[in-house]
């Protein structure tokens, strides 16, 4: 177990556990000390269980992953059985050699036995080679297939799944859960077989030699089993404590690193250091606690063979020297048992450990299959067909826009959760090539409308139509292939700028990318970076400024030559000069495409063909900017807010 070796919990410390540790809680319940903490710690976080009971159906299901490798698997079964046989036989042979030719001073016999032994060893080594190779290959193949299936499954699930599932959980399915199933397939079954066969063979041999001595050994077996289980339980309890302090430690550390600027600006170095020292000391204590559990039980278990040998020595002495008749024992039995004893005792422990491993695998397997079996909230209807693109064959350059698509919302209602409507009775038409601006306060439903347009959710009532076709009958990917969107979070993937821009069209050439950037009038800005378009975008795109990220997202959306464009203008991290260039370029690029803009800039709204004013999920006003301003209603009020909040420098005219 890596835990005791490295002192850290194996795998990712994704979830913490409950603990009823009064000492620890008191340290952190004191008012001041809690205040020093950087992160808030919850002692009772919901936790995924470590163990699940053995379940034949689940086991069978896990083994179906080995079906493509059936021959390998079957060979493996045979080999493990053979191996289980070989080691005790070898030990028996040694015993025989000592008791036979050696004791009998038969040199020829010694050589013969040695020769047989060598032959057996050769066979054993070959067996072992294949057994190990096949097991490892099988395990990796199963893990490979599981990973692949899981990823595919994830891509078919709708966004609602990702919105409601914790990110960390999804990741640990892929990493630790698949791994524990792999270990189960590769090790547990086969190791258990080897051990069981070994134990049986050793038992048979010993019983055959001297069943009285053997019955003595049998007495020890339940003792060992009990001690082993006790030990594992104690260790896992300690491990839970360890995981909890680890979780505190790592979250404090991670946030300290992320918030270093704030830490130094507010002179928190000393306080944080003192608090962290307390944390690492606590964690160290828990580590020692785990070591303690191990240190108590393991020597107890190791003692068994010594104790047994002592008892055997005594008994065989008695048996040989005193007892005659039915209780007579050969001294040779002692020698034999010396070599065979461990083959009998060790499996008890090993099988015990494998059993626990199997329980962990059950839990992991359960979670994995729950994900694989997850029924998506909704799916494209089986009869859904592709939305056909309008333009002719061959890609046009981004300058010549393809004919936009006509979009319509027909009395659409939507609620994320039943009983909490987010949109009510939304109806509008966007003619091909029009620009629709959505305005309203946060929470008025703007993002939801474009979300429905992209078929990330299905409307609760009403229809969303594109080119006259109900989206319910259109395949999602054909729809997305004709849309380009720029969202609020400007998400970029690890890789070069170039790769990110052609994310949706990987086959696009670098020249096409450049011409898109040129059309957006920002090619020079990106080529000015140290490695130009080959600049690597790193961890969370941290090496680029917000403005640069936005530009890349724009280029990405437009490279696909979309008929429908969705744009969320919420962030505006670009400096005004660049922004102006971008606005002008966008104007040209959006011509001909139907665009939906969650608008914040007056210039955008002014140029829109249709402005929809939203309030609490309803369209309260619609029209062009001029018309709405003249109407003096909600929009006019909003407009004044914009203006007031902006850089109005001329005094009295704007009040």
């Amino acid at each position, binding site marked *: 177990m890596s835990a005791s070796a490295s002192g850290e919990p194996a795998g990712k410390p994704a979830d913490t556990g409950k603990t009823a540790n009064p000492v620890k809680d008191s340290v952190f319940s004191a008012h001041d000390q809690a205040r020093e903490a*950087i992160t808030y710690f919850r002692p009772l976080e919901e936790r995924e269980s470590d163990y699940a009971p053995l379940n034949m159906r689940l086991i069978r299901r896990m083994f179906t992953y080995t079906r493509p490798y059936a021959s390998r698997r079957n060979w493996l079964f045979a080999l493990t059985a053979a191996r289980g046989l070989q080691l005790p036989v070898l030990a028996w042979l040694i015993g025989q050699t000592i008791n036979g030719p050696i004791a009998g001073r038969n*040199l020829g016999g010694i050589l013969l036995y040695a020769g047989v032994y060598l032959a057996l060893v050769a066979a054993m080594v070959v067996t072992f080679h294949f057994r190990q190779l096949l097991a490892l290959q099988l395990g990796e193949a199963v893990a490979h297939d599981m990973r692949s299936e899981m990823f595919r499954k994830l891509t078919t699930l709708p966004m609602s799944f990702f919105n409601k599932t914790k990110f960390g959980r999804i990741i640990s399915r*892929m990493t630790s859960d698949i791994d524990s199933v792999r270990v189960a397939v590769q090790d547990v079954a086969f190791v258990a077989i080897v051990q069981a066969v070994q134990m049986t063979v050793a038992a048979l041999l010993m019983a055959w030699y001297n069943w009285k001595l053997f019955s003595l050994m049998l007495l020890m077996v339940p003792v060992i089993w009990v001690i082993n289980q006790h030990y594992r339980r104690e260790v896992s309890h300690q491990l839970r404590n360890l995981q909890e302090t680890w979780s505190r430690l790592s979250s404090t550390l991670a946030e300290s690193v992320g918030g270093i600027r704030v830490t130094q600006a507010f002179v928190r170095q000393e306080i944080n250091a003192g608090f962290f020292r307390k944390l690492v000391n606590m964690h160290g204590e828990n580590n020692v606690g785990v070591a303690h559990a191990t240190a108590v039980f393991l020597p107890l278990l190791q003692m068994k063979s010594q104790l047994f040998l002592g008892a055997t020595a*005594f008994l065989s002495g008695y048996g040989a020297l005193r007892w005659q008749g039915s209780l007579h024992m050969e001294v040779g039995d002692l020698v034999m048992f010396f070599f065979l004893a461990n083959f009998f005792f060790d499996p008890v422990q090993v099988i015990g450990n494998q059993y626990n491993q199997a329980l962990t695998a059950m839990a992991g397997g359960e979670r994995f299959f729950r994900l694989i079996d997850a029924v998506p909230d909704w799916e494209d209807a089986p009869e859904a067909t592709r939305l056909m693109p309008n333009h002719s064959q061959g890609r046009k350059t981004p300058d010549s826009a393809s004919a936009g698509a006509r979009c319509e919302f027909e009395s659409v209602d939507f609620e994320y959760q039943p009983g909490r409507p987010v949109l009510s009775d939304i109806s509008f038409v966007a003619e091909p090539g029009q620009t629709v601006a959505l305005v309203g306060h946060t929470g008025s439903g703007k993002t939801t409308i474009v979300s429905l347009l992209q078929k990330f959710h299905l409307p609760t009532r009403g229809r969303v139509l594109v080119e006259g076709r109900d989206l319910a009958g259109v395949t999602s990917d054909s729809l997305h292939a004709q849309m380009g969107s720029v969202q609020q979070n400007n998400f970029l993937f690890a890789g070069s700028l170039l790769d990110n821009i052609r994310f949706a069209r990987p086959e696009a050439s670098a020249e096409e990318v450049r011409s898109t950037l040129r059309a957006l009038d920002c090619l020079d800005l990106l080529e000015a970076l140290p490695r130009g378009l080959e600049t690597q975008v790193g961890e969370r795109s941290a090496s680029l400024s917000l403005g640069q990220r936005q530009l890349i997202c724009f280029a990405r959306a437009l490279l696909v030559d979309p008929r429908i464009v969705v744009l969320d203008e919420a962030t505006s991290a670009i*400096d005004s000069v660049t922004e102006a260039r971008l606005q002008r370029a966008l104007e040209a690029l959006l011509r001909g495409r139907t665009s939906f803009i969650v608008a914040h800039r007056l210039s955008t709204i002014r140029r829109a063909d249709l402005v929809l004013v939203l309030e609490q999920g309803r369209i309260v006003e619609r029209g062009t900017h001029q018309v709405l301003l003249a109407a003096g209603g909600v929009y006019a009020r909003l407009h004044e807010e914009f203006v007031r909040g902006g850089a109005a420098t001329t005094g009295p005219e704007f009040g």
Partner: protein
Amino acid sequence: MVRAENMPETTSNRAHERRYETGELVRRLLGLAWQFRKDCVQALALGLALLLLALAGLQLLGIVVDVIRHALDPSQRAPAYPFGWTPPASWTPLQAVTVLSLAIVAQALLRAVLTYQYNMVTARLTQGKIVPDLRARLYAKLQRLSFRFFDAHGSSSIFNRVTGDVQNTRLFVDGVVLQGINMLLTLVAYLIFMWRIHPSLTAACLSVTVGLWWVTHYYSGRLRPGYQQNRELYDDLVLLFTESVRGMQTVKGFAAEPHQVRRFERANDRVSDQQRKIFRDLSVFTPATQLLSQLSLVILFAYGGWLYVQGQIPLGGGLVVFAGLLQQFNGQVANITTIANSVQQSFTAARRVFEVLDTPLEVENKPRALVPSRLRGRVAFEGVTFGYLAGENVLQEVSFEAAPGQVIGIFGLTGAGKTTLLSLIPRFYDPQGGRILADGKDLRDLEIDAYRRQIGTVYQESFLFSNTVSANIAFGNPHATREQIERAARVASAHDFILSLPHGYETVLGESGVDLSGGQRQRLALARALLLEPPVLILDDPTASVDPKTEHEIISALREAMGGRTTFVVANRLSLLRRADVILVLEKGRLAHLGRHDDLARKPGPYRETALLQLMDLAEDGDESEPAKLRKRESRETTQPIMNSEARR
């Protein structure tokens, strides 16, 4: 983490790595062990005791066998007791056997107890002392290092240094020093005992052991880089997976699912292919070692058996014991390679750990630094020149003075040096040329922490911790009272929205807590900055990434916050700058213009350009001639007083 645009970019983590010689590493690591020498000696003593007990146990068993055989058949060789000790003649063989058996049991019990002791001593030493101590030291040092270090090394590297690298560094003490000495003693002891039984038998069996060692050495040389590569490939796979999940909306939005699946499959295949290479090596290596061990056993029985037949060695005390010793000896040989690997691991880790401990602090207190009383807030730059790298100056000869309570706006295009200028004010770096004064005193003469407490900072995207709202606001002073916290929140216009949160001030922010909007976050950050009622306020583009409505909220909040404090605000939006008493216009590190908004809007240059653009954005419908309006206003310029800080209150 948003960095200054001019901070030098490093493409690899190795760029700033200090070179450590092996000798120096060994010395420092040994020094680490020396620091805890008492515990080390204790562990070694226990290890030695265990070794002797193990040997004793083996011996006893062998003697029992011989005693019994001798008793049954006096023609057999007499048992050889160690140290020439012979049992009293009055003992029957059975009594001797009984005593010996009891001795074996006693030895087993003693061994169990000492093993427990050994493991506890080692655990307390490593996990209870070395690791926490190293971690605490690293962390304390990290908290004081400059931002430059953090940006150069990336957060996961730094995280790993405190976690995994510390464990691997400590591995040198127990995995290398203790284990190494233990192993050495064990090997020597077993060797001696085997030799005593029969020298040439020992030589014969050990010839195979040498082969065993060689095989182990060879294969770990092959396997180690394989494992390393596999880890990297696996990390890539996990990264791809993680990204796809995080960016699933983007993936779906561009119908890129098939593309991502293909990428994932490729990465998956790469991992599996590489694993198969490792398996091939592994499945040759392990059987090979087994083969060699067994071979030595064969030699033992063939040659040893012959020796027994010749009468040169006893059966129990000879062959059986020898077999046990040989088994143990071979087992230890595998340890040699483990220890060698541990050395490598600990060196790699120690380099990274020592690098943190050795990196010098960017700014340090002068001896007898002055602890300033409450500053009035007069800040001056005198000919300040600064660059992150030698020879590449980001700021050149910047000079200006801010009177107490003034609002200083800082404007400039990307890369002009605005954030850098701001970071010099709390003395995060020292300028190479010129000096910075606070209330007339050079910053280098002031005590750093006391000085920084008088400055409140709000960054572009403020970092809030996953803690309660009140803990976040009280970050600068964990012992702040509820009144103080609420007062700061009120000034920052945050009090009302905080009360509307599910648990008010005790609401927990962060992943499983509440997500706040951009405007709310910035207002919290502002409250945090205001808690200590600092005379100086630094705002680095606080409205950069928010929408105009939120900007409006933040600016109203700022209005009250800035009252009476010397405020430095970097902004691109005129909404903030027009309230400034003085605006510094930076161009490529130099102070190009200095003045009030109206003056600057008239002078040709980037400021005027930006002003025009932003005005156009708000122009009334149809009338594109906002510039015309501006010019119109200029022409009827009156002596309307510009709002200054006093009038704002």
